[in-house]
């Protein structure tokens, strides 16, 4: 059984007991434990089920590479699936459950898959579910959906908050083991700004566990001194619990700081996403131990050798009473030694190498540990827990020599550098045959904005696995990083020492000649259930590319992203293809290194500040007056103001009728207002608009259209000539920023010798439209300026005072009514609105929203950008030829409109549509024509662009684009409806109401 030892544990605080629950069981751990350590201390070796076969799964590792021990953690708004127990810190009150089983961890129905394993080989997903077709919907898909995914999806909104922080540094060092500390010390000695981040809560990595000494001191002491030295440097930033997630172009690095995972609900942000820009990145990310491939290597109790000693030394947790160590290298002997040192039993070290005569094997032997070389594990015995191992010759086919009972197997297949961050941005790898791993090729680093390499690997991450080499290499990395920035680092360097190690031997399958029965029990990917036999099958079926094999077998596609399985899988594939490993290559390393929660990626952007909400100066009045909002870009505009008892539709119709009968008030503040000034402003606007603006007299207004260079209509609005050299251009609400940018683009990049300045004054003014037969009376009641027909006729503007407010009044109309649009400084906008409401009371004034505005403009046949236009419509399609100058030699879009297709008489053109039965044509309806097209679909001849019920005319009205529309006045077209039937409409003039414009001309 696994249990807590009575002494030791360098990372735990025995004085601080922590209660937690696992699958409802109340258990105890200590402060400093990981969840995995606490589980093992409570004899919970089996912690989950595998993905495909639902085989029992135990804790394998002690860090980020753990493939199995994932849990559902927390409750309610703090529930998170797939939390890795080996990296999650224990906290008092933690509550978590195991995943991927039903009804329980111990009795899981899904394990039936295990007995059908022969029918679920590699590529199973691509070979099944094909026939009969109907079975997919009714049988296969429900099964797949039921079994897909590991943890549960959180149901409640996340109770925590997250944030970003932007950081800038000369040198970022990722990984705070002894290599990272050394690299930081060296780099910082150059005076460069240095940032050092470490994913765990502890500095120093595994050196203290491995018995390393540095400068004659135990590693732990040196680490303490090094950290203190770094903390005292003004140019160094240190961050624990901060995982370097990804390296991106131009030295951009994302790091995920787990601020409050271990102190949930303490008010701090749960995570902080660091968005770091570094001139140089040093990766001292260490190495990951590889499993060995032998039959039954997935049974709970089989663990990585280094993880076993991590649990013993760091947490005083014994993974088992009797541990068999199986290895192809010297390092694993440290585990045997550590276990015996704390009084646990190691019946045997199985070393696959022919001999083992290094310092560590000799030390083990001297301690009385039995060592057998040239041997292998033929098979692990047990189902939910290891009960023993059968031993054979490594060179043979698996004939059992002897069986040994044990409850734990500590395996080591050698070490692979963590090259992820090196590789994210294009760093290349070389195959190190002696250590049987890929490591960074320093001659082919990822390059940055200056074309220079910007990532430098150091220490074990660079293949320098043994302590002395690790420190030396890391110091070099720090020095090179500083040098690359033109700085000089001091070269005083610490010296590490540890027992010398003899070469490892690459062992990819154990035993070498294992039968297919054994190979189909050798797991490569523990979580996704990919075995040696699956990869070999894929190779036989023609999957020669490693990327294809990965996807076909799902090797390395589990949540650990192949941290354990990658190299072993490659080696098996290479062997099956009779190729060398470097020729087979690796799959692509993509960020993030370990999963980053979506909350961290979203940062502060949620709830109220998910995205900017633009408010007009009158926003709060609307909110207090039963507004229904309509989003327009990032603005909120009132759609309608409901009175009690009204439906939305009734409210809109009331607003239309009241505006046509009495007077309405509209918040038009969102309209774009662009000031264009200069000696060449007229010439510029003549290029920008399809019409002529240079001839507009001061004091007058003119409607204008803007097109892009394809000739397509992009925006419209009224232009007012303010002075001899300045014009104010109104744009659509959504178009203000875009059109301002469009103006600046042409002025800066094409006509930079033209003397024109622009300013976006959209937000400087609140704009209020007073609209309707009583509009003039309201303004006269406010008083202060002459707004008579004679002084201020239609399409003119004037500055003045109204009700004591400094205003600019435009007599323009988008409704066909007598209408004044009044601009006041935004800071006075609300007060002016209130004054209008007060002044208008006796004249029946009511505010109205965008829907009433839309209906009124449709009644008048006025187009709306985005309704009548969709980026493929030229003004000529809309009957707006009158607004296009025939005289001008050029304007933006003119050439585009000259194209043959644009002058084709067959184009769909704008007309009014009047239903024969008075009903409203459905939004987006398509007019059908006789016959079918080449695909057998009904031919079409038009579509509706705006369709409303007109409360003024008491019938449905619409505008639409119809083939040769204006030539077909009086003809009918047919619009099929969704759900059957159709509506017939007559083609009519688009102006439905007050055709002669008498209402505005008063």
């Amino acid at each position: 059984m696994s249990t807590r030892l009575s002494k030791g544990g360098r990372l735990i605080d025995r004085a601080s007991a922590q209660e937690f629950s696992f699958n409802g069981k109340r258990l105890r751990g200590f402060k400093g434990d990981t969840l995995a350590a606490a589980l093992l201390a409570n004899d919970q070796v089996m912690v989950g089920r595998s993905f495909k076969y639902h085989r029992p799964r135990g804790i394998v590792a002690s860090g980020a590479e753990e493939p199995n021990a994932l849990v559902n953690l927390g409750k309610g708004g703090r529930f998170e699936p797939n939390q890795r127990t080996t990296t999650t810190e224990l906290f008092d009150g933690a509550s978590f459950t195991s995943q991927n089983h039903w009804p329980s961890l111990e009795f899981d129905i899904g394990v039936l898959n295990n007995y059908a394993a022969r029918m679920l080989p590699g590529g199973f997903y691509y070979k099944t579910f094909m026939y009969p077709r109907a079975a997919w919907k009714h049988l296969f898909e429900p099964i797949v959906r039921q079994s897909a995914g590991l943890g549960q999806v959180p149901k409640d909104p996340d109770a925590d908050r997250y944030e970003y922080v932007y950081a800038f540094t000369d040198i970022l060092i990722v990984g705070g083991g002894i290599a990272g500390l050394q690299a930081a010390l060296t780099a910082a000695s150059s005076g460069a700004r240095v940032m050092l981040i470490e994913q765990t809560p502890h500095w120093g990595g595994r050196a203290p566990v491995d018995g390393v000494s540095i400068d004659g001191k135990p590693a732990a002491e040196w680490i303490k001194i090094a950290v203190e030295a770094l903390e005292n440097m003004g140019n160094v930033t240190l961050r624990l619990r901060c995982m370097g997630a990804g390296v991106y172009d131009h030295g951009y690095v994302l790091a995920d700081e787990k601020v409050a995972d271990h102190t949930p609900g303490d008010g701090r942000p749960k995570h902080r996403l660091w968005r770091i820009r570094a001139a140089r990145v040093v990766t001292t990310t260490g190495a990951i131990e590889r499993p060995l491939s032998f039959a039954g290597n997935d049974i709970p109790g089989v663990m990585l050798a280094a993880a076993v000693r991590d649990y013993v030394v760091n947490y005083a947790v014994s993974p088992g009473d009797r541990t068999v160590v199986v290895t192809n290298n010297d390092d694993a002997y440290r585990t045997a030694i550590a276990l015996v040192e704390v009084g646990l039993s190691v019946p045997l070290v199985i070393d696959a190498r022919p001999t083992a005569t290094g310092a560590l094997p000799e030390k083990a032997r001297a301690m009385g540990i039995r060592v057998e070389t040239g041997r292998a594990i033929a098979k692990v015995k047990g189902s939910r827990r290891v009960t023993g191992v059968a031993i054979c010759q490594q060179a043979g086919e698996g004939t059992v020599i002897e069986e040994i009972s044990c409850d734990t197997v500590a395996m080591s297949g050698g070490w692979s550098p963590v090259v992820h961050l090196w590789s994210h941005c294009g760093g290349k790898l070389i195959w190190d045959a002696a250590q049987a791993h890929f490591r960074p090729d320093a001659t082919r680093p990822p390059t940055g904005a200056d074309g220079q390499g910007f990532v430098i690997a150091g220490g074990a991450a660079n293949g320098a696995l043994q302590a002395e080499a690790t420190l030396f290499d890391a110091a070099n990395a720090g020095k090179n990083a500083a040098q690359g920035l033109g700085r000089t680092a001091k070269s005083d360097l610490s010296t590490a020492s540890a027992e010398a190690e003899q070469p490892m031997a690459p062992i990819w399958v154990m035993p070498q000649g294992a039968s297919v029965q054994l190979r189909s029990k050798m797991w490569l990917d523990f979580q996704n259930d990919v075995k040696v036999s699956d990869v070999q099958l894929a190779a036989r079926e023609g999957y020669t590319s490693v990327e294809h094999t990965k996807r076909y077998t799902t090797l390395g596609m589990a949540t650990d992203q192949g941290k354990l399985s990658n190299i072993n899988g490659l080696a098996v594939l290479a062997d099956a293809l009779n190729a060398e490993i470097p020729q087979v290559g690796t799959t692509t390393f993509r960020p993030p290194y370990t999963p980053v929660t979506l909350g961290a990626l979203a940062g502060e952007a949620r709830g109220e500040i998910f995205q900017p909400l633009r408010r007009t100066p009158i926003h709060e009045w609307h909110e207090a007056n039963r507004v229904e909002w309509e989003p327009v870009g990032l603005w909120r505009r009132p759609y309608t103001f409901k009175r009690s008892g009204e439906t939305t539709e009734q409210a809109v119709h009331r607003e239309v009728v009241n505006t046509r009968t009495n007077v309405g008030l509209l918040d038009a503040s969102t309209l774009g207002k662009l000031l264009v000034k200069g000696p060449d402003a007229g010439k510029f606007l003549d290029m920008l608009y399809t019409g002529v603006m240079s001839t507009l007299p001061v004091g007058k207004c003119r409607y204008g259209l803007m097109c892009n260079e394809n000739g397509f209509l992009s925006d419209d609005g009224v232009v007012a000539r303010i002075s001899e050299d300045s014009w104010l251009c109104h744009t659509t609400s959504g178009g203000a920023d875009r059109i301002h940018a469009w103006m600046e683009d042409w002025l800066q990049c094409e006509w930079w010798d033209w003397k024109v300045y622009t300013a976006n004054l959209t937000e400087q003014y609140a704009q209020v439209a007073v609209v309707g037969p009583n509009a003039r009376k309201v303004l006269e009641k406010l008083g202060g300026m002459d707004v008579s027909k004679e002084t201020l006729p239609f399409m003119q503007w004037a500055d003045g005072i109204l009700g004591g407010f400094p205003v600019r009044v435009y007599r323009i109309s988008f409704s066909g009514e007598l209408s004044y649009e009044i601009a006041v400084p935004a800071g006075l906008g609300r007060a002016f609105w209130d004054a209008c409401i007060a002044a208008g009371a006796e004249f029946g004034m009511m505010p109205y929203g965008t829907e009433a505005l839309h209906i009124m403009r449709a009644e008048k046949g006025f187009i709306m950008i985005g309704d009548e236009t969709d980026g493929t419509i030229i003004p000529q399609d809309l009957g707006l030829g009158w607004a296009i100058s025939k005289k001008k030699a050029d304007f933006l879009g003119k050439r585009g409109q000259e194209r043959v297709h644009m002058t084709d008489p067959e184009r769909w053109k704008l007309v009014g549509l009047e239903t024969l039965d008075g009903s409203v044509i459905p939004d987006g309806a398509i007019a059908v024509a006789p016959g079918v097209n080449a695909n057998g679909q009904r031919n079409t001849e038009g579509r509706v662009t705006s369709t409303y019920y007109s409360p003024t005319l008491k019938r449905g009205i619409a505008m639409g684009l119809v083939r040769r529309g204006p030539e077909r006045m009086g003809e009918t077209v047919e619009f099929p409806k969704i759900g059957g039937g159709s509506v017939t409409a007559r083609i009519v003039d688009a102006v439905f109401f007050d055709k002669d414009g008498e209402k505005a001309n008063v």
Partner: protein
Amino acid sequence: MSEAISALGGARFEGYVTVEEVGPVGMITLRGALGSPTLAKAVESVMGVEVPASRRIETAGTKSVAWMSPDELLLVLPYAEVTATQAALTAALGKDHALAVDVSDARAVFRIKGDKAREVLAKLCPVDLSPAVFHAGEVRRTRAAQVAAALWLSGGDEFTLVCFRSVAGYVMGLLRASAAPGGEVGLF
């Protein structure tokens, strides 16, 4: 006539730094040839400071002039003085091709004060705000999360941040979130 009000009416938030939306602030956008002697004289006559160098802000008393772009300055002054200043400026610019326009009401102004003000802004703006790099006298136009902003050090540990009026509520929300107690980074 009513008094002009700022977007948030002087809203305040006490977090681990103090955030305050300051009431109406006078602002004039001046576009023109910044190297022009006429423009330099005009600016000096109405603002009492020289035309600032690229990315700099010059301050004299209650008035500041900030460099916005190679042909644009932002004049910051008491709200009540805008109309007169704009008229004087326009007169002083004479026939120079220039544009001087009141943008006071189009903006919202925040002060962020406290010894950790730098890191509160560093959560929102992709700018190196470390004391070794970002000094008093520098103006930085950038973004605060998803909206445009300009910021400068207006006192020892006080930043001024300017954004568009319509998004003042959003920016206040950002600053509240960034300055919420418990979010201390300890970066600078």
